[in-house]
């Protein structure tokens, strides 16, 4: 994903500031160097990197941290603001009739993006049509046609015609009933004068509401020149970053956004027509800086709590801190987490959990954790109410029955009981704490106090869920 590494390396540098209340010049210099490295290895334009880091450096040195703010938070805030400033909002795309023109280099993914965007608009209740004007590349017509069939959207193209401008005109007429017209064009680069002239002619004929530049996430420093040329010829209102499912960081897109004074519209993340996302700037940067996307997280938690609560009005998460922690509570806890979405996404949103901590986990830790949670749930479904309320009654014969009933291995059932016991112990340590003690509790969990709760689950290999 874009700038992922910035997140982890920046967090490393920022951690050295922990506990400091004032920034020395050396501190700032070290941070700025790290930011430069990260941005450069993410393909962000060199001069843009220098501008950005200069701004961060002078602000970090000049601005007084507001009272009570640590040096770390102060820098974090500055970096955040500068990056938000650079990335801007995602491109505004009103859900109404419009014409969109796509431009970009050969092989950047215009045709695939056209079909994906058409699919996206169709899911928003609009009627899209893709018009293919690439008369140059062999197979372009067939590719666009097949992709549109997969996306189940209207398609216009003419494999025998030779003039892209004429095809664009005919296409708009032929698909007049559609709400959204997406005009795909042949790949070209900034130095091909005749092809640049051609796309200018298409732009004049089509008169698009917005022109989007499609860029491969892997593009390097060339992004600047390409973007500025396309901006000059047809005016770029937004950037589509493709192939983000690879390892490229997409920094070239940031350069392009800066160069064209536009914003990011869509992200392409796979080969099927559904693999398209709208770009969400603030959440993206928050997550990048390891601050957690609190807004999204709280929304998800609320939604999940509401759903869980509907089923069972007796259950209140607050009860965890009073009375005893039963298997039922644990079941609810897991259910709630499941409803929030894939575990890794949720974890990434929790401040302190995502980012730094995620970086240290093995790649498959989340899958493993998720599978184990599923097994645990299945095992719990085979337990009686009595067993769920009072797990102490579960002896050897009951374990055997649960194993037979659920098809889950005995070892896993025992691990479940063990996990519950640890969580119970941990929870009971916190009982009697006031409301404001959540933070202390988190800290305790992080230090591995009792090895239960989320901290235990995230413990990688050794943890009960790991």
């Amino acid at each position, binding site marked *: 994903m874009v700038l992922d590494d910035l997140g982890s390396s920046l967090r490393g540098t920022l951690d050295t500031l922990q506990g400091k209340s004032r920034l020395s010049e050396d501190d700032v210099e070290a941070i700025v160097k790290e930011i430069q490295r990260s941005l450069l290895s993410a393909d962000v334009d060199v001069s843009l990197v220098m501008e950005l880091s200069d701004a961060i450096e002078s602000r970090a040195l000049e601005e007084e941290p507001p009272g009570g703010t640590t040096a770390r938070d102060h820098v974090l805030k500055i970096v955040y603001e500068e990056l938000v400033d650079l990335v801007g909002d995602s491109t505004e795309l009103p859900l109404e009739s419009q014409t969109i023109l796509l431009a970009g280099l*050969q*092989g950047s993914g215009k045709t695939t993006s056209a079909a994906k965007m058409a699919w996206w608009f169709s899911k928003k209740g609009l009627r899209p049509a893709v018009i293919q004007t690439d008369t140059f590349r062999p197979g372009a017509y067939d590719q666009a046609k097949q992709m549109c069939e997969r996306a189940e959207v209207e398609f216009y193209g003419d494999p025998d015609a030779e003039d892209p401008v004429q095809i664009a005109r005919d296409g708009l007429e032929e698909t007049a009933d559609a709400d959204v017209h997406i005009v795909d064009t042949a790949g070209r680069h900034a130095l091909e004068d005749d092809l640049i002239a051609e796309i200018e002619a298409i732009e004049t004929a089509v008169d698009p509401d917005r022109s989007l530049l499609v860029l491969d996430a892997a593009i390097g*420093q060339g992004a600047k020149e390409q973007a500025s040329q396309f901006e000059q010829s047809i005016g770029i209102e937004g950037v589509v970053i493709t192939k983000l499912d690879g390892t490229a960081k997409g920094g070239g897109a940031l350069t392009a956004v800066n160069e064209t004074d536009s914003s990011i519209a869509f992200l392409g993340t796979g080969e099927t027509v559904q693999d398209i996302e709208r770009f969400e700037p603030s959440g993206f940067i928050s997550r990048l800086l390891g601050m957690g996307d609190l807004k999204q997280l709280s929304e998800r938690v609320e939604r999940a709590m509401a759903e869980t609560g509907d089923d069972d009005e007796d259950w209140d998460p607050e009860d965890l801190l009073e009375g005893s922690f039963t298997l039922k509570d644990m079941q609810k806890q897991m259910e709630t987490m499941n409803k929030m979405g894939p575990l890794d996404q949720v974890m990434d949103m929790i401040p302190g959990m995502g980012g730094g901590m995620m970086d240290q986990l093995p790649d498959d830790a989340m899958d493993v954790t998720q599978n184990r949670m599923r097994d645990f749930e299945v095992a719990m479904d085979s337990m009686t109410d009595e067993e769920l309320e009072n797990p102490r009654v579960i002896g050897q014969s009951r374990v055997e029955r649960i194993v037979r009933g659920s098809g889950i291995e005995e070892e896993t059932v025992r691990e479940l009981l063990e996990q519950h016991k640890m969580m119970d112990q941990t929870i009971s340590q916190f009982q009697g704490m006031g409301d404001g003690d959540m933070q202390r509790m988190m800290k305790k969990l992080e230090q591995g106090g009792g090895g239960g709760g989320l901290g235990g689950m995230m413990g990688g290999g050794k943890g009960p869920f790991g």
Partner: protein
Amino acid sequence: MFDGLKDKLNDFRKDVEETTDEQDPDATDDAPDDASGTDSDAADPGAASAEPATESADRGTGGAPGDPDDDSPAETDAAADDGSEPSTLQRAKAFATGRIIIEEEDLEDPLWNLEMALLESDVEMSVAEAILDTVRETMLGETRKQVETTGELVEEALHDALLDVIAVGQFDFEERIANADKPVTIVFTGVNGVGKTTSIAKLSEWLADHGYSSVLANGDTYRAGANEQIREHADRLDRKIISHEQGGDPAAVIYDGLEYAKANDVDVVLGDTAGRLHTSDDLMAQLEKIDRVVDPDLTLFVDEAVAGQDAVTRAEQFNEAAAIDGAILTKADADSSGGAAISIAYVTGKPILFLGTGQGYDDIERFDPERLVDQLLGADES
């Protein structure tokens, strides 16, 4: 391509020349006052003070620069005793032999600028650092003779460092084809949209120009429009194309191509594969299978010249899945920097064989690293 890098390398050379040379005139002024040899100029104490002194000594006796003169020991000793920098003896020796020493601080700024220049040219960060290390090592503590300009020394260091990373595992592609048992199977790999199919069409034309027949085999059984694209190329070039239905087994298609070539005395089988991202485990496993089943004579990795830092990661991973013998760099006409070539050659240890330079079938060129480096460093041509 490479014009951008060339300009920047020239800047680097000037940088170093300026930082080391700008001290010479200063030093001439300082030296008489500063008879003890301790130079107040922190940037280049030893070199600055030693050099003019030697000059005058040489001038006085007419001795050759490399020839320590009998008149100078007093001064030499003075410089040696009072120069408190770490390399006192070396400097004394350099002084005596009419050389100066390039200090680390002389290089710091120019090297930082060089690193930025390399990054700006899309050379991957670790590769850029490797180049810097070589340049630094070559130049640091390196003495230069009075007769040499700093420029020449820099040029030599850069030349070696660049050649070191680009000229790896060179082989003559044409000779390889000529000497191999026919038919020769060549499989093309790379991520989506880099220009594998177009490169195949161009290479088929290049082979024909050099007297070899070829058949195309479409191992891209996945992408929409892939069959149509390569068929169109084959029609235009009048080549035989072997293809299966979409969704078929890519290895089988290329194998069929090989069978066809054997039966019809065709020299080269050009096997296309579907573009895939190196992060897609199952598709990379499929590539391994193709490599195992087809066992091609040559595997060429195709990437685009406009690719940035990621070029290294994908080259590494493709090389891992199906060991590559060389690379083709496409869209070289769209890019003025060409750092991707340097990065890919460096991490795979395999040569860049061809450059794709346009949309016509003839727009393919042999890549010659020696010539490239000479061009990059040759100040006169452009």
